């Protein structure tokens, strides 16, 4: 499916969503509340068939957080990006680890690095950071560690 066809199809599924122009791939902005249903559609809709979640990450914009999901279909070889805006003080989003199992590890990474709480995640605990880590989430912009971080 070409990018234009994808856009039409996605608009059918999510009329409220907006598209972000300029990128190489179709980039869609989705509301947090719609995410779980939309994710299921992305995976199950026969024409879309996004079965390969190859990148899951988060960006701290100081005012809000943005979840970024990169999808690919191994059947049709089309790609797309989903962005979800989260509240920075209470970031919560539904997990997709039951749809794409790779999300389980990636979400755990985002959980500890950005403090995003993934609802209904089966095993949400620290993966990389040492146990008992208390304090801020390292990849947020306001994180400061005067001992280990070297500023250039």
């Amino acid at each position, binding site marked *: 499916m070409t990018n234009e066809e994808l856009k039409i199809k996605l608009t059918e599924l999510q009329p409220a969503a907006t598209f972000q122009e300029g990128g190489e791939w179709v980039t869609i902005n989705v509301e947090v509340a719609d995410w779980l249903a939309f994710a299921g559609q992305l995976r199950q809709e026969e024409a879309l068939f996004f079965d390969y979640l*190859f990148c899951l990450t988060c960006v701290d914009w100081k005012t809000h957080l943005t979840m970024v999901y990169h999808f690919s279909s191994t059947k049709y070889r089309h790609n797309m990006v989903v962005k979800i805006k989260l509240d920075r003080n209470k970031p919560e989003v539904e997990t997709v680890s039951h749809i794409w199992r790779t999300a389980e590890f990636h979400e755990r990474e985002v959980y500890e690095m950005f403090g995003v709480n993934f609802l209904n*995640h089966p*095993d949400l605990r620290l*993966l*990389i950071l040492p146990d008992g880590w208390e304090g801020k989430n390292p990849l947020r912009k306001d994180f400061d560690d005067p*001992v*280990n*971080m070297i500023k250039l």
Partner: protein
Amino acid sequence: MKHTVDKETTLLNESQAPFAGSGEVPYDRYGDTSAGIALGDGDFQINFGPQHPATHGVLHLVITLNGETIKKVEPHLGYIHRSIEKMCESLTYRQFIYVTSRMDYLSAHINNHACALAVEKGLQVEVPARAQVIRVLMDELTRIASHELWWGAMAMDLGAFTPFFHAFRERESINDIMEETCGARLTMNYMVPGGVMHDLHPNFQKRVKEFLQLYKRKIHEYDELVTGNVIFQNRMKGVGYLSAEDAIAYGVSGPSARGSGVSSDIRKLYPYEIYDKLEFDEVLEIAGDSFARYMVRINEMHQSIRIIEQLIDNIPEGDFQAKTKNVLKLPKGDFYTRVETARGELGVYIVSEGGNTPYRIKFRSPGFSNLSVLDHMARGSKIGDLVAMMGTLDLVIPDIDR
């Protein structure tokens, strides 16, 4: 890091750490009723690592065993996490590439390549033909070197020591080529935005041809020593089965996915540089077990040799680097590039705010996703099999921890 101290003390009793979510388990993950299997009668946990001969680095797996049978594998990461993503946020677009050589240190060239491609995509710079060919040559040499090391180390995991030395015989000559060309043997830092750092050494072609000859003379030893061995095949066949659906769902990429019959070679699917003009095959095996993954890597070495043979006499003349500004500034927006490293798909996601440093950078490392499938694969098999699985997943720990 000052925090790592308490990690070791709390290892054993953290398997039941509290959920941060709602506390409910939304789905039956692997046919179990809970995410963490409670220790049953006769079960015990062992710490596989952080210092263990089979993990090739500081990987720490907590394994729940019943006798010799594995019930659960739980990776604990972070022992060598350097937070490269955070570091890159304070480095300029010229500087951050050098850090990435330290991620997957066996594919240093390819990591640099991915970053250079991302920056070039943002700047919309056209890379000269000569630089493209040099880059591909270097990538393929790196791929062979990486697979050689994997081959030796994997055989060593299975208890055969000799292949390691045979693999290093060939790997040494690649390293010599690297040393002559870029002055480094492991962390090369040769690729820069716009091309490569400096031109090839005059001896390069001669050396590569010598290597090709050596490789062709010696490669049959690999099959004689390991591939055809009955014990080896028994250890590998049917072990660590991974179906194509699971491979995709877990985000497995690279040779590990191709062993399950998932076409995932970025060089073929989303060609970069001159890969679309080259003749080579994507190696696919459908068995999905450890032996299939093994065969994929062995055959990939042959394909890389094929690519090098096509290019080595046809390096075009011209610039080795495009003209770029002294201070690189990417336009506002996000840029994603993916390349095929020796381990799988490496993605570089740069979010730019228009400054001379990335606002946020994310490396989608193949090892991280490949590791996540280990638990799924290993359940129900023996400890010895776990070693074979880890061997054929080809885990490089700095790549997982970044």
